[in-house]
């Protein structure tokens, strides 16, 4: 064994030097096994899907605020189309935006660079992961255009509605949606194997467990969470697919099946899933906040342990989505306890982030603004979760817009704010250019302010009794009054403003990439290893002889023994 390893190593060292200079476009950008290229593929696919998901939100929000109008760029929205739009909006935003961008794109990009490795341990599995993901995206988008239209049974896809074309009227769309989701899961299982084993085994010499940058830990913990929770749902998806296509009766009570089974399988995955996307976003913001407040993390181990505790607890809370779904009412009490308990580790994580600012020297660069906004906004999402976790209150709130606003106040900070934070922070590394700060700040404020104007009204509407997944409220006189419509219109108009400001972002990306100021190796004066190589890093990340060795943790800012206020991980001494 040892022999073969050494041999392989020798062979690779040579392989690297003259391997990658003369490749064609296709092998370099499409079928590359380089983790950075794969990261870019995930990033741009995720970005494209994000625009599609945002477009869908635009279409159905227009319908909600101005029922029956012909939405510019779409046309009249029929009830079936409405259901399909929200279902696919939810699915896309979670499975094709949040996960691929936060976990796959940044995980791929950052893990090898931050632990001082030249690539993932299984580059070809990595490539396969993206290919499967790409196919899943194509299948999902195709499902919108088949006969009967895209699936419209909500992203939770509860049977019997989802199990039979007689009920959902989208036989083919439903199956394609399910296949797309299952493929996406497979892609992330493949990716997860890579993240986990790479972090475990391929760290630079000297890098101990507590020297790993938090974002790497978080992505890996998220991958483990994902891997351990998605299995039952995959089995459940096979069963649902058989119900749809072979006419089995797994979820059909008339034939000995049980529709609630799906809910258990779905939420057993679904709740851990929300932390699967939360943790990477926390990791990103923690790193960014440490850099721009020039502070050591206030409790590295605390963040790590609370993340693990959150992960473990998350397996025991799933039925809080099913309080009134017909489960045994005594069971609801157990899940209320676990759900409320989970506020403790998450609160602790957030408190550590706040405490990290203490005694710092804070510069409000664009990435720092995003990081701070993440915390400020996520708090709203977090505390409103408590109302829902309290079973007695959830009787009223379940499936109202209060729930909706709760999870947009968590998901938006995670998937959109967190992404922008990471994107603006690592842009110089990825593309070798600085982004324009003024445009960045305009985009920031143009996104954050409208965001609150979209979702605060939705909290109010939820408290007023507005329930979810309704294409037109005129059939419910109590929630069809003018006050209600005003709030809906405020939300929609805020969305339009927010979408308009996204143009600034794309303009900024293109202009900075094209003409931006050169970034240099370490524009933020940060400690972690990715900043010790060129921007953008070459194939192999470092010249083979210069692969870094690690001497200390990632957050040594303002160390009293040192002149400069930062201390890169790879500097001896």
């Amino acid at each position, binding site marked *: 064994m040892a022999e073969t390893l050494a041999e392989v190593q020798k062979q690779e060292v040579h392989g690297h030097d003259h391997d990658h200079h003369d490749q064609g476009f296709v092998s370099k950008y499409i079928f590359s096994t380089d983790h950075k290229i794969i990261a870019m593929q995930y990033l741009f696919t995720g970005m494209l899907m994000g625009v599609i998901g945002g477009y869908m939100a635009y279409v159905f929000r227009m319908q909600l605020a101005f029922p029956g109008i012909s939405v510019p760029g779409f046309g009249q929205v029929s009830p079936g189309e409405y259901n399909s739009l929200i279902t696919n909006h939810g699915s896309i935003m979670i499975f094709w935006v949040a996960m691929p961008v936060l976990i796959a794109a940044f995980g791929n990009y950052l893990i090898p660079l931050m632990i001082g490795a030249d690539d993932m341990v299984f580059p070809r599995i990595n490539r396969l992961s993206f290919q499967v993901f790409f196919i899943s995206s194509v299948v999902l988008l195709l499902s919108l255009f088949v006969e009967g239209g895209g699936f419209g049974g909500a992203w939770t896809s509860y049977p019997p509605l989802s199990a039979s074309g007689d009920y959902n009227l989208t036989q083919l769309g439903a199956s394609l949606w399910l296949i797309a989701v299952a493929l996406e899961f497979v892609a992330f299982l493949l990716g997860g194997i890579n993240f986990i084993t790479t972090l475990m*085994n391929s760290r630079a010499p000297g890098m101990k467990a507590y020297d790993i940058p938090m974002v790497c830990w978080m992505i890996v913990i998220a991958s483990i969470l994902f891997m351990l929770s998605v299995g*039952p749902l995959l089995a459940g998806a096979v069963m649902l697919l058989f119900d749809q296509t072979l006419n089995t009766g797994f979820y059909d009570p008339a034939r000995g099946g049980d529709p609630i*089974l799906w809910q258990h399988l779905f939420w057993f995955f679904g709740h851990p899933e929300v932390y699967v996307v939360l943790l990477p976003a926390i990791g990103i913001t923690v790193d960014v906040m440490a850099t721009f407040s020039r502070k050591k993390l206030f409790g590295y181990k605390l963040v790590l342990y609370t993340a693990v505790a959150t992960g473990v607890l998350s397996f025991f809370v799933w039925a809080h989505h099913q309080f009134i779904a017909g489960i045994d009412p005594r069971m609801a009490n157990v899940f209320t306890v676990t759900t409320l308990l989970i506020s403790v580790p998450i609160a602790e994580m957030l408190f550590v982030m706040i405490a990290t600012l203490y005694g710092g020297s804070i510069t409000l660069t664009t990435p720092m603004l995003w990081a701070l906004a993440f915390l400020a906004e996520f708090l709203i999402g977090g505390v409103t979760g408590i109302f829902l976790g309290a079973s007695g209150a959830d009787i009223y709130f379940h499936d109202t817009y209060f729930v909706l606003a709760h999870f947009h106040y968590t998901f938006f900070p995670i998937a959109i704010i967190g992404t922008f934070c990471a994107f603006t922070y690592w842009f110089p590394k990825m593309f070798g250019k600085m982004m324009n700060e003024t445009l960045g700040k305009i985009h920031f404020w143009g996104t954050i302010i409208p965001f609150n104007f979209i979702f605060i009204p939705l909290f109010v509407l939820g408290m007023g009794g507005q329930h979810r997944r309704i294409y037109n409220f005129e059939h419910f006189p109590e929630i069809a009054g003018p006050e209600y419509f005003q709030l809906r219109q405020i939300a929609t108009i805020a969305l339009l403003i927010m979408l308009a400001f996204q143009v600034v972002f794309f303009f900024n990306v293109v202009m900075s990439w094209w003409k931006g100021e050169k970034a240099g190796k370490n524009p933020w004066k940060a400690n972690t290893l990715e900043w010790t190589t060129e921007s953008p890093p070459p194939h192999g990340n470092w010249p083979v002889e210069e692969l870094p060795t690690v001497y200390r943790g990632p957050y040594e800012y303002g160390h009293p023994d040192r002149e400069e206020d930062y201390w890169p991980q790879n500097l001896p001494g």
Partner: protein
Amino acid sequence: MAHARPIATTRSATGIPTPRLAVWWILASEVVIFGGLLGAYLMHRIGHPEWAEAASHTQTWIGAVNTFVLLTSSFTAVLAHQAAEKGKGKEAAKLLAFTILGALTFLVIKSYEWTIEIMAGYTITANTFWSFYYTAAGLHALHVIAGAIIMGFIAVDAYRGRELHRVEIIGIYWHFVDVVWIFLFPLLYIAK
């Protein structure tokens, strides 16, 4: 493009070779897949005592023979690993071939069994017991097929004396496939 293996692959901060680490994580994700399926089945089975009648039509003897076949093939996989450890590629390849033969035997017997059952009218839609039966056994059979194919590639490599460490990896996977069957057999065939 040459498949240059990155230096990352050659490192081992935990002391465990990366491929072995990876296969354990893959198994962890597989365990929850089968765990979810079997857990769902068990919950239903407890709720439906009348399924015992359907279960009594399974071919217990055929299942038992298949259990024996799989156990034997796992044994040859162990021997293949031992041979590979000693660097005897050809012998490892031969033993892997036996394991593949075991897999094929298993599948042939399984097809025969399913044919009998389907002819008797016990199709996947006959009732939900049979739905579970075919889904669980089918998912397992897919793992047998996948394992056999991968083993084929590894055997060819091993025969040429290459990538011998992979013999152990596929062996671990194969034991897992075996263990899953050890759970399926009593749950689907014996519990009546």
